């Protein structure tokens, strides 16, 4: 296998500084089943961070776990080397491997709330790592305090005595980081450690990681689906697709001038907080293990596909200062991916607001989540509601839809006050206000076909004959770019993006006048997110729909909304036109939010 060193990984200075070197790693389903990951090779030097990026199912977590000599149930590492300071981790006996894990190579999981033992106090938890690897450290108590200071936690006895559930998400992730760094490992593997965190917390955790790696000469591998996060943190990036590394090189080169069509696609899909642009996603779906043909696995979705692509598997070749797995690596012209600027939407049409929220307060039990929120959705306009988790944005959406009925104040729809719960609302109101759920994996009944799911909406709200209903179902599926082949499929046969399109189709088929989209892209990959956002934007413009777009991702706002409302702990921090809020935020909270949004730095 060609080795991505020298020119391919410019961060490397000499052999001596390489702490982690992976060659020809292969993981299969069972001993002789299809490969999940193949031909993965890279090297990370001391103090450097390598970003491992790709969509879900690309095999990045499988690679990350293989770096610790672990394979998930049913998987098996069948070939390759993982050299840790020159020692092959995969050749170790189970006993030596156990000794190496935690001490020489450590792991920070995605979700700290489930990774920390809920019955152990924070101090005990960190001390446990040190006790297991007793030989590596001197006094455990001192080291616990030291490592906690390193991750910017104050090691007061009070904090050490807390249980994980008494900490915030950011603090939990810091504890997990402290446990990973406790034994001063030479390599640390971070598996999307900031996915569940707010932008501000995320930025602080990322800074901590970068600082620690730099000052202790740790080589880190950072797995993420978020290119913007990676671009600001890592020195080198490996892009994975269908179990293979398709492009690997320095961050600046790779993000500035992507060569592989997949990398280009991914970068084109990342929303920008600074410019209003049309997002371009990548259509289609990644082939699953066992369904990857002889040629390039990306060929089916590629814009640059040529005759040989589907028969000839491309090798990793050096092109333009990085390694690329593409037949056309040298002949595709390098150009920074460009996106069309977004044409400004129609001017806000005057008239009665589609929905207006007046002094709404809501609570769950005795906990108050919203207090005195005011909001107005002009007709034909998309209003973005943004805020961190816990800011009450989803509760607000649920109050408007009638899913949460414990609220006070007034919500009017086209001038008529709405009843608290959906049960008390008139059928016609329910039809005209449609709600799209966050998670397309739970919002479609797994026992019904796509046809039945959309048809049911029509049956509930209209008296149309079966023939008319069928025609409308077909038309709406076409409108959301799903073929009629999907009619008799069940949701579990669809990808996340396709499911979300079905959910959108279900809302649109009854011709609503207001669409409430609750974090509709947060469960999806960036490339799919781009497609869904673009679809919603197109539909909103075409049908002159009033829309409420709830999101935690400020970068998306410009691509879809005309005005925005920033929520903070259940109150409105700021509201106004999108340009005004994003370019000249008045509220310090908004300013901080915007500042902390990870941006795709092309350097």
């Amino acid at each position, binding site marked *: 296998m060609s080795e991505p060193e020298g020119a391919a990984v410019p961060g490397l200075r000499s052999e001596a500084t390489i702490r982690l070197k992976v060659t020809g790693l292969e993981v299969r*389903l*069972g001993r002789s*089943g299809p490969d999940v990951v193949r031909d993965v090779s890279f090297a990370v030097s001391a103090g450097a961070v390598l970003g491992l990026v790709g969509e*879900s*199912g690309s095999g990045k*977590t499988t690679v990350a776990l293989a770096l610790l000599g672990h394979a*998930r*149930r*049913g*998987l098996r590492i069948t070939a390759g080397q993982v050299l840790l300071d020159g020692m092959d981790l995969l050749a170790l006996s189970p006993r030596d491997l156990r000794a190496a894990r935690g001490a020489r190579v450590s792991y920070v999981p995605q979700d700290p709330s489930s990774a920390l033992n809920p019955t152990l106090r924070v101090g005990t938890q960190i001390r446990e790592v040190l006790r297991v690897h007793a030989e590596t450290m001197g006094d455990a108590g001192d080291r616990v305090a030291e490592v906690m200071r390193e991750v910017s936690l104050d090691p007061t006895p009070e904090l050490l005595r807390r249980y994980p559930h008494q900490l915030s998400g950011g603090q939990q992730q810091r504890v997990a980081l402290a446990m990973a760094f406790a034994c001063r490992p030479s390599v640390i593997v971070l598996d999307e450690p900031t*996915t569940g965190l707010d932008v501000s917390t995320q930025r602080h955790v990322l800074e901590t990681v970068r600082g620690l790696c730099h000052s202790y000469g740790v080589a880190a591998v950072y797995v993420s689906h978020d290119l913007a996060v990676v671009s600001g943190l890592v020195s080198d990036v490996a892009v994975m697709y269908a179990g293979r590394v398709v492009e690997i090189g320095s961050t600046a080169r790779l993000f500035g001038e992507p060569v592989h069509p997949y990398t280009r696609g991914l970068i084109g899909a990342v929303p920008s907080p600074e410019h209003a642009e049309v997002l371009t996603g990548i259509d289609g779906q990644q082939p*699953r*293990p066992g369904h990857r043909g002889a040629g390039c696995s990306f060929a089916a979705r590629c814009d640059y596909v040529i005759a040989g692509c589907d028969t000839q598997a491309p090798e990793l070749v050096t092109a333009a200062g990085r390694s690329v797995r593409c037949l056309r690596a040298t002949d595709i012209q390098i150009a920074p991916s460009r996106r069309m600027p977004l044409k400004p939407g129609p001017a806000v049409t005057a008239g009665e607001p589609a929905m207006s929220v007046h002094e709404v307060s809501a609570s769950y039990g005795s906990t108050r989540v919203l207090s005195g929120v005011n909001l107005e959705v002009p007709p034909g306009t998309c209003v973005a509601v943004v805020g961190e988790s816990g800011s009450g944005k989803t509760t607000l959406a649920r109050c408007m*839809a*009638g*899913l949460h009925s414990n609220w006070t104040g007034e919500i009017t729809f086209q001038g008529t006050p709405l009843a608290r719960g*959906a*049960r008390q*609302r008139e*059928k016609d109101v*329910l039809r005209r206000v*449609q*709600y799209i*759920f*966050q*998670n397309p*994996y*739970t*919002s*479609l*009944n*797994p*026992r*019904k*076909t796509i*046809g*039945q799911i959309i*048809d*049911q*909406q029509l049956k*509930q*709200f209209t008296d149309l004959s*079966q*023939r008319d*209903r*069928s*025609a409308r*179902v*077909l038309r709406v599926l076409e409108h959301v770019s799903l073929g*009629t082949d999907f*009619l*008799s499929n*069940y949701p579990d046969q669809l990808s*996340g993006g396709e499911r979300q399109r079905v959910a959108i189709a*279900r809302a649109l088929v009854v011709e609503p006048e207001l669409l409430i989209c609750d974090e509709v892209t947060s*469960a999806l990959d960036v490339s799919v997110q781009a497609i869904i956002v673009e679809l919603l934007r197109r539909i909103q413009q075409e049908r002159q729909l009033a829309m409420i777009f709830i999101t935690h991702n400020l970068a998306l706002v410009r691509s879809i909304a005309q005005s925005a409302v920033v929520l903070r702990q259940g109150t409105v921090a700021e509201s106004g036109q999108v340009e005004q809020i994003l370019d000249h935020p008045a509220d310090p909270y908004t300013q901080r939010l915007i500042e902390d949004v990870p941006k795709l730095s092309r350097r």
Partner: protein
Amino acid sequence: MAVNAPATPAAQPRHALRIRRHQWGSVFWSAARTPRGMVGLGLASFVVLVAIIGPFVAPNSPDALVTLAFGKPSGQFLLGGDFLGRDVLSRVLNGGWVLLIMAVCATFLGIIGGAAAGVSAAYLRGISDGIIMRTVDVILSFPQLVFALLLLSLLGPKLWLITLAVGVSHAPQVARVLRSATLDLSERDFVKAAELQGMRPAKVMWKEILPNLVSPLTVEAGLRLTYSIVIMAGLAFLGFGAPPPNANWGTMINENRDGLSLNPWAVIVPALLIALLTIGTNSFTDAFARVAIGVDRRPEEAALIDNLGQEVSK
């Protein structure tokens, strides 16, 4: 499938809207192919065949006094005679079908009553939940056999009453299992989506929730069938069964135990048939549950499912 349909554009989707997937049948057959399921299904089918075909092939009338009381097995009477001198073989062959029919009916009653109570308690919450589940708790505080006996001594030992009593005694346990399964389901967004369509609660439970409960329902039905057989046989042993001179496996064990040393077959054979039937239904249910949950899936498939699960959790 739509090949013969007229080529109008509306014809195909109309058909597609009606399509059903028979996936539970495939779970059934893959369960039957596992060793556990094969043994279970084999045993149960054997006993069921004995009970169904038995009355047609029995050599003698089950009520005729044809041999000596507790007569030893002989060429003419393969399993010997019972306490009155009737042919044991003929009584065994005749004594199964009533028990089976009653057990199946009782199971159906229990599952339907229990499912209705459990699903509505979980979905409606509030007062309905409180009333239903406290009632369930009261019934559960009696051992199942004792509860059935209590009902029978109040109502009298008629066959349909026995069936009803056993069915009612199953309901609370079924209700508990289905309530917890429904609690999880009713928080899913597709249920909320149906509520936003203004669907009535009864329809939400019937159309949205129930189809997702097929797996726990089937497992529960198999388990309850096993218990029904045991309890029915136990009640017959205690004298609550088909009145004499009707043949019944449970009653036969009771009637003939005095002569255990003279002709043990009169007790052993009916006891064995009941044991085989319960072991059979139980093992098959177990195999079905494992296939449905995915424990018996091959590791490769399990890994793929894990991967999907990860995608979902994101």
